[in-house]
């Protein structure tokens, strides 16, 4: 029996062929934590009683959730990270002026590369699978153990294969593809499994792929992973500062399920409260009035997301009853938006533009909803209370639908404001 892409990478790490269901211990290439999870990990690390980390170049500490620090408590949490980074000489600690949302930042800096095994104490660590590596979210204790030993334990996953066909229609992007898939298989449709994307992946930009892999966790998956091609190569080249290895799945690899996804058939998608699986075609949404629109996050805060928002918002005005918040995901993306004149157009349209933060996505800060309010967001979760009051609502969409809806005042297709 052949191996899936994920099983291939794990087998190479272990040095022998692994089988689905088997528990293995693996050397990791990168260990990541943020200002919510790393302080807990640091506390646990200190209980182990060793005085050094396994490798100070393989740990990334990114304060991004509550930065710039929203209150004294969150400032204390970041201080724990800062002191730990200094003490152990952690090379990849990113202060607020150099940072970005972790899952946009690490690929941009060339810190995660094809063939890597990456663990991060953040569920959206699965994003990096866009670069053909095995990358998965873990908890703080896993992070602590890995900072000490350089290892993590995994159950080797089975996989579901998604064979992409055709091309994306206008105004349809990676976000619509992943919402469509989650709508099809459900929020536990890929529980404990890998989601492997193959077929006509050249129809998807690298940013589309990041968005799709990012939300694999919303289907319960352990990781999402794409084949390597010239688009991956073009992204990684110039960023990588170390060797990396390209893996391919065996032709006779065994999958628990195989889905054919016809990209031509996908319309813009909207996920209704309170689960990402509650998806509808934009044509079936009805008139849903909104109070706030958020464009950004680890899912959709990249330059191509900003570009779509710009194309739609240029020369238009945000509806007077709507607050539009735009968060470029990294300082580099922010700067690129400035250079391209996007920020000026966002502000002229009536949007508030913030420095990179996870803030509103998880109801942390910078855009909390009041009781009964409704937001449309390009983020990844629409759970009860996710963006604020437990009686507020979050709808999920692409940046195109979000920008168009900010103008209309209710959820619309971008075609309606063109």
């Amino acid at each position, binding site marked *: 029996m052949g191996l899936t892409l994920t099983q291939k990478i794990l087998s190479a790490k272990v040095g022998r062929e692994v089988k689905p269901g088997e528990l293995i211990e693996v050397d990791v290439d990168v260990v990541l934590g943020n200002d919510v999870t790393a302080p807990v990990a640091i506390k646990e690390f200190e209980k182990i009683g060793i005085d050094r980390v396994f490798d100070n170049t393989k740990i990334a500490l990114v304060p991004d959730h509550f930065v710039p620090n929203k209150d004294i408590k969150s400032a204390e*949490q970041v201080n724990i990270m800062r002191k730990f980074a200094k003490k152990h000489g952690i090379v990849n600690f990113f202060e607020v002026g150099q940072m970005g949302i972790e899952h946009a930042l690490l690929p941009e800096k060339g810190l995660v590369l094809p063939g890597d095994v990456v663990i991060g*104490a953040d*569920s959206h660590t699965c994003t990096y699978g866009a670069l053909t590596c095995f990358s998965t979210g873990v*908890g703080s204790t896993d992070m602590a153990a890995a900072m000490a030993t350089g290892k993590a334990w995994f159950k080797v996953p089975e996989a579901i294969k998604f064979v992409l066909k055709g091309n994306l229609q206008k105004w349809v992007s990676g976000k619509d593809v992943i919402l469509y898939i989650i709508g099809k298989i459900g929020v536990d449709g890929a529980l*404990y499994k890998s989601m492997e994307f193959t077929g006509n992946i050249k129809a998807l930009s690298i940013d589309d792929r990041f968005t799709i892999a990012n939300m694999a966790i919303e289907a319960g998956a352990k990781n999402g992973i794409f084949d390597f091609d010239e688009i991956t190569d073009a992204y990684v080249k110039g960023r990588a500062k170390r060797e990396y290895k390209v893996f391919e799945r065996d032709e006779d690899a065994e999958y628990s399920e195989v889905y054919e996804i016809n990209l031509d058939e996908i319309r813009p998608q909207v996920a209704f409260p309170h689960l990402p699986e509650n998806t509808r075609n934009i044509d079936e949404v009805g008139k849903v009035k909104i109070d706030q629109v958020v464009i950004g996050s680890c899912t959709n805060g990249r330059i191509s997301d900003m570009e779509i928002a710009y194309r739609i918002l240029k020369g238009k005005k945000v509806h007077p009853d709507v607050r539009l918040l735009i968060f470029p995901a990294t300082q580099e993306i922010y700067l690129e938006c400035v250079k391209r004149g996007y920020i000026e157009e966002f502000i002229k349209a009536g949007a508030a533009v913030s420095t990179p933060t996870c803030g509103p996505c998880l109801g942390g800060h910078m855009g909390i909803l009041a009781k009964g309010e409704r937001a449309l967001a390009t983020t990844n979760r629409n759970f*009860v209370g996710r963006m604020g009051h437990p009686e507020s609502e979050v709808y999920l969409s692409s940046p195109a639908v979000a920008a168009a809806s900010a103008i209309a005042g209710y959820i619309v297709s971008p075609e309606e404001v063109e």
Partner: protein
Amino acid sequence: MQGKAIKYGDNIDTDVIIPARYLNTSDPQELAQHCMEDLDKEFKNKVQEGDILVVGENFGSGSSREHAPIAIKASGISCIIAKSFARIFFRNAINIGLPILECKEAVDGIEEGDIVLVDTDNGIVKNLTKGTEFKAQPFPDFIKEIMKYGGLINYVREKV
């Protein structure tokens, strides 16, 4: 372990287990004060030391925040029986030494308030109120060993 069952449904996510507005701390007692608050305001008042959480599919979905199992453990819950767990919650619970079991039949056969006895080593769940017994899949040895040490950190400390 033995305790009274507190029961919830499917897809209970980590945002309702412990909302992000409380994630600016990692103090277990402080987190326990807000455990389940967006799902069930009464949880804090009804939970007693040793109680057993009985839940549906995909428990602990969403964020990787270990604050979720930490809050549950600190609120006095001694064990969680679910139809299935979201994978990060699953490993977090094991890593912090919070006993968990997957058993669909047991979840269907237990009502809120029933007295439940759990033997995680052998994967046995007894509903003492109804006089019924269920068999869950016991954990692989590696996971049992982590649990025996009371979590991953103690396990690693032993090995390094």
